[in-house]
Each structure stands twice: as structure tokens, then as C-alpha cells.
């Protein structure tokens, strides 16, 4: 019967090559000395080192979480990971001309042009290679409007007062095991500040690439939109194929002041492991935004196709009145991938509104869980949430799970939850094949249709990329 929707073939991971480049790699292992070494390498001020050390000491007392009901993984050996890897040529870079040509080549292969002449109009890019930012484009143009877009390390040097004010203000170092680890050892990331009343004219974009073996990637991103500001930020990620699991424990903090809007989009395509489930990235990240001022808005859009394990809940704290939080998500699991993703919407301000649209696609033996919390506090009178959770199954060996937690603590607020599960139908595939499409294109079309509400939230170029990625991730999911 399910003749077609069963056979599982391997998909090829397109970004699985390694760049042969000399790196400065810290010896494996984690200790106070390593934390000090990272801080020293980055010539950080004393307050930041103190912050890291406090986080590290807190982390030592925490336990790696293994109580997540739908995710299973072997404990990570934190002493076998190297916490710092930088391309040897990476000094503070004056301009892109200083960037090692091999690195530029790497990004070109990924389809990310770092040279400003060739760059897609309207997208400014910061590229993170292993632990270090290798170049930020369009910086000067943005600076004209007072917008700061640079690597985290640079921000610490040049805008310490901003970093100090907001670092950890949304995701405290003690928040959870991986956030604490990140706070202790984060090596770089991106920093954005958009001043009062400024609408950022470009899409800001960061690409993360893990290259070295046995390194973890612990980047930290901080985005602050001052009163009335607007910014749209895109994040893309890839890593080479390796047999061992690699850890990616990032933290993203967003702060939207009064009347500000932050739109944060992610297309995540880390290496997912081979067909036996060997290797792949553990993607354990903490992403949270705070609508600190009234009438501010934070919108997360994510397309998660890679990683062996994805554990992330981009969340919004709706602190101000009349604030808006949104979460649009597509999570695809194939092969042996596991994803446990969703969001938390914490309503604190009056008339705060949140929308959650989650599309989970499971193929192969993949396990996909949506986990969402909607919490409306007593003071958040007149608040509303709408949640829509749809799951699509391809084949008979995968799974989809939905765990909505709803906690409304006043009588004037309302929440609405809709959920559906569908199986990709042999008849749908056959219909499209009868019109001339091959199986893969047929599935891709059906799945893209299923994800439409999320894709339309993505900026144009990203939407195209996301559609292609989806096609690639599902390659071979149906024989």
C-alpha cells in the first residue's frame, strides 16, 4: 500500500566540506583558565571577564538537561571540546581586503558573497567562521544613520556601555545550562543597535559556519532597537559533515524599546548526521526577545531543516502594553533527526497580543515536537493569543508531537489553539506526477504549500532559499 511513501534513501548534505585553513585552536577542555584565555584573546574589559566567570561557576552547579521527554542524546563530554578556534590570520579586520581569500572562497561556496561589490543589494552580512567574525559588509553605510552592526567582539571594544547595559538583560547567564555555558565561553557573534526612530534600510544578515573539528560554536547575538526603530535580521547556518556530534549552544537576545519592531529570521541547515544517525550538530540554543516598551513588536521566523538535534524556543516577553509577539516556524526532520522546538509567549503588558504558527514536517525516522507556552499574567488584561500547530507526516516511521501549555491568569484575556496532523498523500503526489512533476518536485511543492504561512513572513531572498532547502532536506524521503 504505502509502496511509495516508505523507502528512505540518503540525502546528500551540500555544505559538508571542510576548508583547509590554519586555525588557532585552544586545547580541548573547559576550566576557569580557558574562560580567562578566551577573554584575554579578545582583550575584554574586567567586568566582562567577571561576568563570564560568574556564569562559569554557576554552570558548574547545573546539570545537563536530560528530562526533555522527546529528545534523547548521549551526554556531551565538555572536556573534549575546544572552546576557541580562530582562523590564524584573523586579527581585528580593518576591511574585507584583509580577509583570507580561502575564507572568502568558503563563503562563496556557501552562496554568501562577502565582497561588497557583488553583494545582493539590500543585505548587509556578518560572517562567523568557527568562533570569529570574519567580516561585516556595508558597515560604513549603516554607520551614516547611527546603526551599529558589527561582531560582538568589536562591540565590546567600541561600544562597551551599550553591551554592558543590555548583555544578559533578556537571557541571564543563569537562565539554563546551555545559556550559562554560552555566557562563560562565547567567543563572538553579532551586535546590532538601531537608534531612536531609525528604520534600518538593509536586511542585516549573519552566516554561521562551523569548520574546525571538535570545536563547539557558542556565539552570542544582541540586537537592540531603540524607541521607534525597525530592523530585520537574518541568520543562516551550515557546518561540515563530521562523524562526531558537534555542539552549537548559542544565545540570542533581542530588546525592543517603545514602538520598536524587530524581525528575526533564521534558516538553519546545520549538518544533520548521516543515514545511521551518526554525527551532526546538537543545536541547543536560547533565543528570547523582550518587548520592553509599549507598542513594541518582536517577530521570530525560523526554518529549521538541519542539525541532529534541535532544541530551541524563540520566545517573547511582552512586557509593555499593546505589544506584539509572533512566532512562525517550519521544522523539518528526516533520517534520524530530532527536533523539539516551539516558543514561549509571556504576556505581562495590557492588550498584548501573540501569534504562533508552527509547521512541523516529519520524514524518515525523524521525530518532531512542538512545545509552546502561552502565559498570561494577572496584569496583562485584554491580551490575546492565537496558536496554530500543523504537522505533516511523510512515511510511516516518523512522528509528530504537540505539547501546548496554556496558563491564563486573568478573565479578560483569551487564547485560541488549533492543531492538525496530515499525511502527505500518495494521491497528491500522483496528481502532480500526472502533470509532469517528478516525485521530489511533487513533494517539495506539497510541503511548500503546507508551509506557506511561514514562508510569506520571510524576506524575499530568504524565502526562495528556504524553499530550496526544504526540497534538499526532503530529498530521498520518498522512494
Amino acid at each position, binding site marked *: *500500500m504505502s*509502496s*511509495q511513501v516508505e523507502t528512505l534513501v540518503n540525502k546528500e548534505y551540500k555544505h559538508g566540506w571542510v576548508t583547509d585553513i590554519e586555525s588557532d585552536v585552544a586545547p580541548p577542555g573547559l576550566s576557569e583558565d580557558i574562560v580567562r584565555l578566551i577573554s584575554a584573546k579578545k582583550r575584554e574589559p574586567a567586568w566582562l571577564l567577571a561576568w563570564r566567570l560568574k556564569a562559569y561557576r554557576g554552570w558548574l552547579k547545573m546539570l545537563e538537561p536530560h528530562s526533555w521527554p522527546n529528545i534523547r542524546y548521549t551526554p556531551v563530554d565538555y572536556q573534549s571540546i575546544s572552546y576557541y578556534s580562530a582562523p590564524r590570520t584573523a586579527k581585528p579586520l580593518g576591511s574585507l581586503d584583509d580577509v583570507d581569500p580561502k575564507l572568502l572562497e568558503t563563503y562563496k561556496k556557501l552562496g554568501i558573497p562577502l565582497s561588497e561589490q557583488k553583494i545582493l543589494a539590500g543585505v548587509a552580512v556578518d560572517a562567523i567562521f568557527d568562533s570569529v567574525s570574519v567580516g561585516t559588509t556595508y558597515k560604513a553605510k549603516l554607520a551614516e544613520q547611527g546603526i551599529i552592526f558589527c561582531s560582538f567582539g568589536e562591540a565590546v571594544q567600541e561600544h562597551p556601555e551599550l553591551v554592558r547595559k543590555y548583555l544578559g538583560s533578556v537571557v541571564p547567564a543563569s537562565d539554563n545550562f546551555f545559556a550559562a555555558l554560552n555566557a562563560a565561553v562565547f567567543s563572538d557573534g553579532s551586535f546590532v543597535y538601531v537608534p531612536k526612530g531609525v528604520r534600518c534600510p538593509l536586511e542585516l544578515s549573519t552566516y554561521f559556519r562551523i569548520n574546525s573539528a571538535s570545536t563547539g560554536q557558542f556565539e552570542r547575538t544582541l540586537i537592540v532597537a531603540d524607541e521607534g526603530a525597525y530592523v530585520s535580521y537574518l541568520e543562516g547556518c551550515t557546518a561540515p559533515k563530521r562523524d562526531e556530534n558537534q555542539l552549537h549552544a548559542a544565545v540570542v537576545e533581542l530588546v525592543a524599546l517603545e514602538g520598536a519592531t524587530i524581525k528575526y529570521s533564521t534558516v538553519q541547515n546545520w549538518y544533520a548526521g548521516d543515514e545511521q544517525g551518526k554525527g551532526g550538530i546538537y543545536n541547543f540554543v536560547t533565543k528570547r526577545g523582550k518587548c520592553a516598551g509599549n507598542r513594541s513588536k518582536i517577530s521570530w521566523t525560523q526554518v529549521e531543516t538541519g542539525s541532529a538535534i534541535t532544541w530551541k524556543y524563540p520566545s517573547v516577553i511582552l512586557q509593555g502594553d499593546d505589544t506584539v509577539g509572533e512566532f512562525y516556524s517550519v521544522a523539518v526532520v528526516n533520517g534520524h533527526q530530532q527536533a523539539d522546538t516551539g516558543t514561549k509567549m509571556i504576556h505581562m503588558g495590557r492588550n498584548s497580543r501573540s501569534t504562533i504558527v508552527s509547521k512541523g514536517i516529519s520524514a524518515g525516522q525523524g521525530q518532531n515536537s512542538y512545545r509552546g507556552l502561552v502565559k498570561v499574567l494577572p496584569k496583562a488584561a485584554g491580551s490575546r493569543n492565537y496558536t496554530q500547530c500543523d504537522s505533516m507526516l511523510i512515511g510511516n516511521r516518523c512522528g509528530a508531537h504537540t505539547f501546548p501549555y496554556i496558563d491564563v491568569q486573568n478573565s479578560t484575556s483569551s487564547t485560541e489553539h488549533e492543531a492538525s496532523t496530515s499525511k502527505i*498523500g*500518495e*494521491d*497528491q503526489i*500522483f*496528481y*502532480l*506526477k*500526472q*502533470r*509532469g*512533476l*517528478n*516525485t521530489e*518536485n511533487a513533494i517539495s*511543492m*506539497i510541503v*511548500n*504549500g*503546507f*508551509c*506557506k*504561512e511561514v514562508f510569506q513572513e520571510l524576506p524575499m531572498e530568504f524565502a526562495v532559499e528556504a524553499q530550496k532547502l526544504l526540497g534538499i532536506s526532503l530529498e530521498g524521503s520518498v522512494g
Partner: protein
Amino acid sequence: MLEIRDLRATAGDIEILKGINLTVNRGEVHALMGPNGSGKSTLAQVLAGHPSYQVTSGSVIYEGQDLLDMEPEERAQAGVFLAFQYPVEIPGVSNAYFLRAAYNEIRKSKGLEEIDSMDFIDLLEEKLKVVEWGPEIMSRAVNSGFSGGEKKRNEILQLALLEPKLAILDETDSGLDIDALRIVAAGVNKLRSPDRAFVVVTHYQRLLNYIVPDFVHVLSNGRIAMSGGKDLAHELEAKGYEWVEAASAAAAGAGA
């Protein structure tokens, strides 16, 4: 263009087609009639390559090629088109996007360049006239929430766009009111040409008042029990399918 020889097919353990013989030449319109459950849709699906059916013996030669050896999309690209009895819904995919993708797949298979969206809009405007439709239908998701009649019209629109050599229409008339039936039939008649053949599957004679066939075949229990000209449809209307079944049982009895 189409030679079906002693075709037998099963679904699971059940034999549904029990030795079909049929020859269709260019430009001809064949009506395939028969009671519910006689195997009309199964024949149509087998010709299109539906994976639920297994061909156990016989052959189908289409334009000199072994049709049964081709993937469903290869058959489509070679000019075999099936208008489904139950068109499938594809939520979230706009009709325009779907039609363009299908059109381009067929072009690509012929080594032609893909059509760009501006040219496609012009082409579509022409094709919409065939089914007397406005452009609104293009932004709706494929067959999603379409009425039964709209789904059938959408099938004929695809037929007009993809310009197949062999069009198989499976009960395109069922569920249509008289106005929709007239539009669909007129659409089909516009697409009749000396190079294109039609196999029109229908349960009722009604459609054949509009689409006048060259040949009529009556399917009964997985076999073609009777063939004739267009008058056979009228005779059937008057005498009912029992007449065919009785006649073919008698013939089988005489042969044994």
C-alpha cells in the same frame, strides 16, 4: 497512437481489469461507458501509472513506446493527460504556481526553455477563455475549497494548457449542473483536433450529447463487453446496462 492488448490489472489481490483490448488513433474520440464498479477509473489510472494498481499481463503501446514501462511523469511529459474523477487538493499552492510548474516541466522535457511569469500570464489568459473563467481562480490554492464543478473545470483548464496528445477524461461530467456541463463540453470540443485523441469515461449518455464520440465502448466486469458507434450510447440509454451484461454473458456462454 494507443494500443491496449489483453490488459489485466489488480489492486491488492483483486483482479479488476480482466483483459482489455482497445485501439485509439489520432483525432478520434472514444467514449468508455459502463456501470459503477466496472473498472473504468481503474483503466484510466493504470494508463496514467497509478502505483496502487499492478499490471499482471498484457501490453500498452503509446506512440511506439511501452507505456507501462514509463514513470507517471514521463507519461505526462509524453502527452498522456488524465482529467481525474476526483481532483486532489493541494493546500497553500496557488493554482497559477502549480499550472506554471506543470507547464514548465512539460516544456523542459521537450528541451524547451521555461516560460517566464509575464509570458505565462498572457498564455493563461487565453486558456482561461476555454473554460469561461476569470483570473480570480489563479490565486486560489489548487482545488482547495473548490466546488465539484470548479474542480472539473480546473481539470479542463489544465488540459487546455498542457495540450496533451491523448486526453483521458474520467467522469468529468459527474457532479456538474447543466451550465457547467455545457462549459466543460464546449471546452473539450474546442480542444478536439486531428492530432489529439480523447477517451471520455462517463456513466451517463448525457455528456455524449455535447461531446459526440466516434466510438463507444461498454465496460462490464473488467472487460469491454460491447463496442459500436455513437448510436450505441443511445441504445444503452434506452435498454440499460443489464442489456449489455446479459448480451455479453450470452456471448461468453456461446464461446465456452
